[in-house]
């Protein structure tokens, strides 16, 4: 089929939860790059009878582009060698590009694979401001998907100084300036204060290498993780950003960290905040003692507080690569596990840690993590606020989303998988209590499209109402949900048919999603002074705006 500017997707079973449509057979009309209410009968048709039609997938949190991701790519030549990605044969436009895969695919392969999975929008989850230009260059080479990124704040020296001085307004102006100059989409906080402490040096067993509690001093007692969270959440909301502050809590991966997570949530009670890869932050037990799941407690809080949104960060068995700005966590992971470890301290801002990993069913902790994620999904009341993610590639790659969907929709399959995992740490786990919930297709449409689009404030995405972006995924209605979601039959992106009969046929360029909030220009004077004093890049060269 060629490239119509109009297309009627006819007779499909539509799941458009944002518009209250759940499994209704009706036509979806596209004109140009938008959904329209109607088209003349003569418009070209795509016969979608018997198929499931959903908005294009929206990945709220993945590590797919930028400096840390590239360090991870470079670290894994063996993975790339084992997963070649020849160039797709495209029907029109410039030729496709070849690449490689593994847990951290090259950029072209990333775009093609997302599209092949029916995803049309993705958010790169963590970019250090200093490397924003790099992230944009990689996204320029990531075809098809519309993309943006979350810029890292919360361990940056300038912000911490403002917090120490009580300069909340200036901190907000700084955040606004930073979002604009880096052309970012939202504010990301990773282990607030902890990375700053890790970089500050000071040695000793645990003294001064991370934070443990929300009231730990970061440099000075005037700066604590709690204050950082409050300042940044306040800034994001005062600036009315489309997506609230996106938080990777302190104590990721530590037994007993659910307490930290809940306390972080309570700190921000009443204001919008998004807590990411919640699974890694929902453990009971205690350091040095046994691990347990605290998923129930955590999700109950989420259920009861409508201002909180989360993505799960599900662990999927198989290879993964942990890529995070949470440097100290990775040092611990290296010390206890693998041969390879990357740590890069990023001047005045943040950090980067990478450890290749694998989750095995027979490993008790991995099995617990898997179970905790599923508990969070299955005990969640409001699918609009609990988004599907694996924190790609930390918990597993995005190619495992279909498998995860099957686990959520197919209780029998889930129970069978449960039997095969190491259950040593699963005593009291809700899964073993016979959680019977099965996600419906409508709910899947929420947690993979409508919900994340709404939480990201992308009003044109995640739904199929008139005026929405014409990003549409059409699946064969297969009882094997993993197979169904792994191979969409058709994918339309901005009105262009990119996947046809399961084959990638076109690779148009996606858009960059950015915000540019207003700020008081006086902050730049203060920033210039700061740069003059400490920075190793010029103030005028900082960020990602074109200079010449």
């Amino acid at each position, binding site marked *: 089929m060629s490239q119509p500017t109009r297309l009627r997707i006819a007779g499909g079973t539509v799941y458009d939860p944002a518009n209250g449509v759940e499994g209704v057979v009706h036509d979806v009309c596209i004109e140009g790059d938008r959904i329209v209410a109607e088209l003349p009968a003569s418009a070209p048709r795509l016969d979608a009878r018997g198929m499931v039609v959903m908005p294009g997938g929206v990945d709220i949190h993945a590590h797919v582009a930028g*400096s840390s*991701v*590239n*360090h991870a*790519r*470079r*670290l*894994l*030549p063996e993975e*790339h*060698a084992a997963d*070649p*990605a*020849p*160039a797709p044969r495209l029907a029109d436009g410039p*030729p496709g*590009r*070849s*690449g*490689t895969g*593994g847990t951290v695919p*090259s*950029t072209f392969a990333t775009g093609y694979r997302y599209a092949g999975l029916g995803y049309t929008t993705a958010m790169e989850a963590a970019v250090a401001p*200093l*490397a924003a*230009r*790099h992230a944009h*260059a990689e996204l320029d*080479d990531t075809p098809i998907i519309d993309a943006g990124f979350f810029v890292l704040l919360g361990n940056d*020296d300038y912000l911490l100084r403002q917090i120490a001085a009580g300069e909340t307004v200036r901190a907000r102006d700084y955040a606004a300036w930073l979002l604009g100059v880096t052309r970012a989409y939202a504010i990301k906080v990773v282990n607030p204060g902890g990375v700053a402490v*890790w*970089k*500050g*040096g*000071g*040695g000793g067993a645990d003294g001064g290498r991370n934070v443990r509690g929300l009231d730990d001093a970061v440099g000075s007692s005037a700066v604590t993780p709690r204050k950082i969270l409050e300042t940044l959440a306040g800034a994001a909301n005062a600036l009315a950003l489309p997506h609230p502050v996106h938080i990777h809590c302190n104590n990721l991966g530590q037994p007993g960290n659910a307490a930290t997570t809940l306390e972080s949530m309570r700190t921000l009670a009443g204001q919008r905040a998004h807590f990411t890869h919640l699974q890694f932050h929902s453990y009971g037990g205690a350091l040095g003692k046994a691990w347990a799941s605290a998923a129930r407690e955590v999700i109950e809080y989420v259920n009861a507080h409508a201002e909180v949104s989360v993505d799960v960060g599900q662990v999927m068995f198989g290879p993964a690569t942990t890529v995070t700005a949470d440097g100290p966590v990775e040092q611990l992971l*290296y*010390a206890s596990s693998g*041969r*390879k*470890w*990357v*740590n*890069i*301290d*990023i*001047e*005045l801002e943040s950090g980067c840690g*990478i450890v290749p990993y694998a989750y095995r069913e027979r490993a008790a902790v991995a099995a617990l993590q898997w179970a905790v994620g599923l508990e969070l999904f299955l005990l969640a009341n409001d699918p609009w606020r609990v988004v599907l993610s694996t924190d790609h590639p930390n918990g597993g790659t995005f190619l495992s989303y279909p498998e995860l969907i099957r686990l959520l929709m197919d209780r029998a399959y889930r129970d069978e998988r449960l039997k095969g995992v190491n259950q040593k740490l699963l005593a009291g786990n809700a899964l073993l209590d016979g959680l019977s919930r099965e996600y419906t297709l409508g709910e899947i449409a929420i947690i993979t499209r409508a919900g994340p689009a709404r939480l990201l404030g992308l009003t044109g995405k995640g739904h199929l109402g008139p005026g929405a972006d014409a990003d549409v995924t059409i699946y064969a209605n297969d009882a094997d949900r993993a197979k169904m979601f792994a191979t969409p039959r058709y994918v339309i992106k901005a009105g262009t048919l990119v996947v046809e009969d399961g084959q990638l046929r076109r690779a148009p360029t996606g858009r960059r999603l950015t915000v540019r909030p207003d700020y008081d220009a006086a902050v730049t004077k203060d920033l210039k002074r700061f740069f003059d*004093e*400490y*920075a*190793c*890049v*010029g103030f*005028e*060269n900082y960020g990602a705006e*074109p*200079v*010449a």
Partner: protein
Amino acid sequence: MTDRSVANVTCLGCGCACDDITVVVKQDSIAEARNACALGAAWFGDGTVPAETRVNGRPASLEQALTEAARLLGGAKRPLVYLAADISCETQREGVAIADRLHAATDSLAATATTAVLAAQRRGRAGATLGEIRQHADLVVFWAVDPSTRYPRYGSRYVVEPRGVAAPQGRNSRTLIAVDVGESRGPADADGRVAVAPTDEVDGLEMMRAAVQGRAGGADARFRTVVELARRMTEARYVAIVADGEPGLVPADPARAEALITLAQALNGPTRCALSTLRGGGNRSGADAVLTWQTGFPFAVDFARGHPSYHPQAGAAALLGAGEVDAALVIGTPATLPVPVAAGLAGIRSVAIGPRASAATFQPAVAVDTGVAGIHEGGTAFRMDDVPLPLRPSLEGGGARAALVTVRALRDRLGA
């Protein structure tokens, strides 16, 4: 054109990629590059570059050159695309696109740091951006290198002199130790020196790592001083180790790179440590980054099978030496090609697009002179610590052709 000053210009003379240069232009040529070191001043020069286009040695139009280049490369059985110095990341990306289309072998100047890159792929890294070392390091150990010889402002702008957040007195907040490995010596003005025989170097690093990890080692007299240095390093608040990733006059022990990485990683147990690997200029770190994100591999990539495969031991030099290549595209300054690559290009038909292409020693069949990225055209470049920087041209719009535009035109011709 009027006389003018352009501030915040990025220099690509070495991997420091200093972006605080002010270029003073008088009568369309560069009169001065303020803040630039001698190497930077030489890199900027007066901005004069030849502007010839030649096919088989004779002057030709761009049109003719592109046609012949496309014919030559398109008809090749085993082409090579080589990314040399002085081109932007945008241009490098076009080059890789061409290689992908031609199913060519691809390599770049980043391969000069092969040993360091391979060691990092085996082990990972314990690193930091240059500014982070400036903020926090209270002990800097120069391992067999004096940065001032090839990276002149490394000390003065980044790691030694300037004040940092935790180094309020700049140089006086830091202790510098020079480890002299045979003839490869650290800076002359270090606060302390340790001498290591070249044959003892790798064993010495292993002994240091064992000491850091508390694994008792014998007190072999040969290693006493380095073990003492290791002890001192564990007591620092933040220790930086500086080593050269580029080959020096004296060949380094190939096992050194990995031993340095593992030592730095181990030091992150008792304290904090970053290994800073010095890399050369011309935006070769950009070529490394671009190849990695577009293919998954940092250099020596081969598209022959229709997808990228990695052959670190069979890069451009080896392929050319083995007579495997029948046509080549060199993008960037041909004079920066490593000797084995330049010599290996001698007998084969090639296309050179870049600064001074018309003076290329390997006598390309097609040569198109362009300007220099960072002087005559803009774009993005990477510092040696992988920080991306914008290029701010001071002589844009003059007579020099833009490399990006030219390579793109070639890419279009090749249907890439």
